[in-house]
């Protein structure tokens, strides 16, 4: 009996120590959305997580403490070669530790379902942003404002409905500070609702392995006050209306993920660099040489597999839907990369 009392006290102590220790370290990144919430906001992800940490801490102590205690107190003494006490089992105990966990997991599943419902709650006034994911870039279109950007700007405390599409393979939208995550599946639109609550700059990080440069598929996410957001929108609209071709071109290559493979500073990435490309002599994989003029660059964008630059044998560039005007703008941008 004495052993049970000591172990009981130790289990409670160890569980409390584990839980408060983990809590003090701080396990989650900062919470920046209503879905992430906080440990005290019932139904939010951080609330659910906190319950899980309590359960984990308790169960960890419940198993490890009796184990360690046995190892120390019941260890075999030197010279003792006898067997231990013959205890085959105890049906009442077995039933107890089947039934209690059974009801516990049902309770957790119930709370999980409740929390899922909260996380998915719909605001009909949500601002729609169309997200396009491609290897290896993010692009955000605001249908209400007629702008396209490679940065996701959202105001605080307004629900955003992300309608997401993929141009090639499966990607996954995840901002760790928002907690929620949703895969983007080719051939359909998947949706995710987020209500940002904390102004700041974060990053959307593709969470589903999407090929060679998966690691670099990150894009800025800016949460700001309603007024700042409105200012950004008008700035973008003005830019789109009046910008010279090379600025439009720069926006296009960013929004279409070109820079995931082509550098503008001479670094060798998956594809050839664009620095000093325009007008230069390019050696092709079939041994011939061409001048990188408008015609060559247009062909290379429209039909990426028509010619391949020597040293870049792996042909992976997708055909990106661009108008002739878009391509002209991009070439104007390329000309500036001396």
């Amino acid at each position, binding site marked *: 009996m004495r052993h049970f009392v000591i172990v009981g006290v130790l289990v409670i102590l160890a569980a409390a120590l584990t839980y408060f220790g983990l809590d003090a370290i701080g396990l989650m990144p900062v919470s920046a959305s209503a879905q992430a919430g906080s440990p005290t906001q019932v139904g939010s992800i951080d609330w659910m997580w906190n319950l899980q940490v309590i359960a984990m801490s308790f169960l960890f102590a419940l198993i490890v403490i009796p184990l360690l205690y046995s190892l120390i107190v019941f260890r075999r003494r030197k010279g003792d070669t006898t067997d231990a006490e013959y*205890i085959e*089992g105890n049906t009442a105990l077995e039933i107890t530790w089947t039934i209690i966990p*059974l009801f516990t997991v049902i309770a957790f599943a119930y709370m999980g379902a409740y929390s899922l419902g909260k996380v998915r709650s719909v605001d009909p006034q949500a601002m729609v942003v169309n997200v396009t994911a491609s290897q290896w870039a993010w692009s955000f279109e605001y249908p209400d404002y007629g702008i396209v950007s490679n940065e996701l700007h959202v105001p605080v405390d307004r629900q955003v409905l992300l309608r997401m599409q993929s141009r090639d393979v499966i990607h996954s939208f995840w901002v760790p500070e928002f907690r929620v*995550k949703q895969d983007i*599946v*080719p*051939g359909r639109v998947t949706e995710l609702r987020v209500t940002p609550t904390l102004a700041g700059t974060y990053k959307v990080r593709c969470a589903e392995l999407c*090929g*060679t440069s998966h690691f670099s598929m990150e894009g800025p996410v800016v949460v700001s006050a309603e007024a700042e957001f409105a200012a950004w929108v008008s700035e973008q609209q003005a830019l789109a209306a009046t910008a010279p071709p090379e600025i439009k071109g720069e926006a296009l290559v960013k929004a279409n993920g070109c820079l995931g493979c082509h550098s503008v500073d001479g670094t060798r990435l998956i594809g050839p660099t664009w620095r000093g490309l325009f007008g230069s002599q390019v050696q092709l994989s079939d041994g011939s040489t061409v001048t990188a003029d408008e015609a060559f660059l247009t062909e290379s964008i429209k039909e990426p597999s028509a010619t391949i630059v020597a040293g870049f044998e*792996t042909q992976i560039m997708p055909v990106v839907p661009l108008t002739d005007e878009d391509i002209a703008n991009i070439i104007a941008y390329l000309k500036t990369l001396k």
Partner: protein
Amino acid sequence: MKNMKPLTRGLALLLVGLVVGYGLGLGLHLLAAGRVNFTASSAGLFSLLIGVILFFYGLLGYRTTTRALVWQTVGTLLGALFVTGIRAVMGLNLIDANYIFTEPAWVFGGLVGVVSFVLGHGVADDWIKMARGQDVPEHRADAPGWEKFYGPSLDHKVIGIQYTVTALILLIVGGTFALIFRTELAQSGLQFLTTNFKLFNQNGLQFYNSLMSLHGMIMIVSILLGIAGLMNYLVPLLIGAHDMAFPRLNAFSFWIAPPAAVLLLASLILGGFDTGWTGYPPLSAKAPIGMQMFFLGVFVAGWSSILGGLNLIATVVRMRARGMTAFRMPIFVWASIATSIISLTATQLIGLSFQLVMFQRLFGMGFFDPGKGGNPVLFQHLFWFYSHPAVYVFILPGLGVVSELLPVFVRKPLFGYRWIAMSSLGIALVGFLVWAHHMFTSGMNEYLRVPFMYSTLLVAVPTGVKFFSWVATIWNGKIETPTPMLFVLGAVVVFLMGGLSGPPNATVSTDLHLHDTYWIVGHFHDTLFGGFVFPFFAALYYWFPKATGRRMNETLGKWHFWLMTPSFFVLSLGMMRIGLLGMRRRIADYDPLQGFDATHLVLTIAAFAIALSVLIFIINLVTSLKRGEPAAGNLWNSRSPEWQVSSPLPAHNYDAPFEVVGEPYDYGLPGSKYVEFAKK
């Protein structure tokens, strides 16, 4: 050459083969592509193949394994040439500049190569004779000495050792892959796997992805072979059978695995693939030829699992000793049955899902291509229908080892034997109903997530029964801690970490954050180390004397344990820590602004410490074979039948049959016995 030792001769020829093969492959690439490429796939492939073949030639001469590998190589080439011939008739392109043969040629060649391996090895000779109406002997004597391990032995103990050694080799290969990419991850920024890196037609990033993907699958195959090794060696001994029910099928089940391993390794050389072991389309539909070799390798390795499961169930159902009723079976046998039910009935689904992607690539069948009415999410359902139950295949035998060894080292009965036995079956059966918890963010039907959350959390109940029963077994025991017991205790604690980190992933709302992060990576490394690696080592230390008549060195064993265990805790806890904070899975590089550099450096050091501990184990294993302390008797003072006779056991096991006269784990009950041998 003649008077060299076989191993020295093999190693010398290995070097010759590497160089000759490299030259040959380089020349072939020059012919196909018209330019020299010193890191060409063909150069790597021929170098390794010819090197390994010559190694076995030096070791064995031209028979069994050597002949099998030669036949596999020749078969692959002939199969590829056959398809190339058909393509010539059809007017299609014949040569691939990078890989010499086109993709369909490689796939068909790979398949022919596997069949050729089996025929060349001789493991199917008896069946061929039977098919021709010729007589075959009921028993076939093995070659004496170590050479039997390379041939088609029918002895379940030899096959068990073949499985186990192959598992260890793959463990080392998979671990080496991990060390390479772990080194790249030690610091943010790309250090050596950069875009300037060129090997096997891959740049550094692509090579990182190939290594990461293959680390997963090589380790999975290693685990499958490891548990097959334990089950093959132990189950007939534990139930008093003279062999498995179908010895020829048993030999075949093993010998189908090496050509599968060759295909998996070839996938790295033939352009690799960047999908992870899960191979989700559409990414896998676009990956290089290596993807197909990977699919084919897994497909073939699956046969080993399915047939092994079938054989084991038949053995346990039909060949138990007199008096061994269901609830008097050793608990490891219960675990093996539960595992075999899964591998017999679920493995087909991973084979099927991979086959569908193969056909999508080869024949343009758009199963998972939304452009042709296919659905990428369907693949995930098919894939996880096996691949989730598969994790219970990996861990149940290990948990069986824990339950089997605990009573021996605490000198007390296994607490709640029937409950532990039933919990294995419970885990196996509930395991069939939980697969979609891998897909909570996949875009499948939203409401489906809730029932799968309930079913997944239910797994915690039978798993909890195991933990509570183990603790109750240890409680008040007289505990000894030799090396096998240390690994058992390590297994309990590490698996506990894996178990506790599971429910947050099963709960949909928290999984939305946790899915596809390093938290998951830490979680499943905990379950697989606790459920397989630790128990596997425990079993090897524990039964090594049974197999060899010598025991392994205790001091080295303790070094192994005390180096591996803390390092592993650092590794898995560190992974979970940064995962929660935003570290994604399967990335070659990470954002330095996230501040993970220091943790990653520690993780890399921990990974190397684990590798060092495994090296200590291998040294211990090899030196103990010859110089280990002789231990022919009941070394651990166990009640189990295999320890009642002297080690090692002869072919067909026990000289006289035994009868079960008591409960298996009645330690502490004076005068009780589990088995009684018949008088000769």
